[in-house]
């Protein structure tokens, strides 16, 4: 399993992502500087979190035009598995690989804490087929702009095509306005494209993948992501 991790100026979760996918999960990871024009021939691309270009203009807006992005767009359009975590998700939105936008969290605060998630039953994403939609996962978030917005038609289209992958829930696994900490439309924490090969999520499973860190729920998500790609490669 070869995983490419593009790094932009201001990415700051790239080392965590490399460590978890490489050392913990045993994949072959290599990072690719944003000025490169080819992502190579990986089995999967993971766009890490951070603050690419200092979030200037809009989150992800400038990274989306980095030289490496054209190659990632091609890879994604040919069905290659691409996952964007946090800022990676924001970049995928700006690049038009996923629909919608991110606004500031409703309470205007940067939120850094563990939240609860559920996988949407029957969703189109290739990556979550091995996960139980009944299970609640405790995963950290860390963002100022995670308030996912899409208009009513867009939301209906996401629902009709089963593109909602993760939603924020409370500890009991129920939808609850209190649990939707950033105010996202329909408590959306992650979505995929119609084909299911591009996934974006705000929470950071890579920050909760080892028991030494006090929470290994993220490991289950990451195992499922890798397993999904292994099956299709």
């Amino acid at each position, binding site marked *: 399993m070869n995983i490419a991790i593009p790094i932009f100026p201001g990415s700051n979760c790239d080392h965590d992502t490399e460590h978890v996918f490489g050392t913990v999960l045993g994949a072959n990871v290599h990072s690719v500087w944003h000025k490169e024009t080819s992502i190579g021939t990986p089995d999967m691309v993971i766009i890490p979190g951070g603050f690419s270009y200092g979030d200037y*203009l809009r989150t992800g*807006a400038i990274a989306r035009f980095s030289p490496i992005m054209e190659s990632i767009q091609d890879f994604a359009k040919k069905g290659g598995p691409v996952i964007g975590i946090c800022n990676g998700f924001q970049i995928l939105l700006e690049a038009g690989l996923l629909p919608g936008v991110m606004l500031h969290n409703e309470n205007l605060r940067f939120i850094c804490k563990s939240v609860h998630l559920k996988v949407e039953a029957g969703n189109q994403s290739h990556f979550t087929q091995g996960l139980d939609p009944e299970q609640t996962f405790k995963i950290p978030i860390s963002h100022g702009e995670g308030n996912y917005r899409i208009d009513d038609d867009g939301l209906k289209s996401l629902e009709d095509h089963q593109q909602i992958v993760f939603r924020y829930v409370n500890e009991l696994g129920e939808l609850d306005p209190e649990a939707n900490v950033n105010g996202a439309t329909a408590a959306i924490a992650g979505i995929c494209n119609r084909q299911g090969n591009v996934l974006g999520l705000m929470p950071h499973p890579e920050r909760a993948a080892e028991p030494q860190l006090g929470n290994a729920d993220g490991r289950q998500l990451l195992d499922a992501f890798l397993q999904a790609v292994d099956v299709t490669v």
Partner: protein
Amino acid sequence: MFQASVHVTLRPSILDPKGKASEQALHQLGLKAIQDVRIGKLITMNVEAATEEEANKKVEEACQKLLANDVMEDVEIEMKRVAHDTSQ
């Protein structure tokens, strides 16, 4: 040469938490007559172009490709001719 001022604001249908928080603070200061505060961005730039129409076209392209996201933002462009005019 033209100088463009691009005003980028959140669309009216989009909640503007910064504007709302500022409005609340203004009300606390007793400035209750102030309503509907919206916070946006002002981006200025010089544009090399022969005509105002051409300059507008270039700035519109810049807005559409990078400076604004039309899913959530509206754009207003102000254009004025400045010195070092190469069109004469």
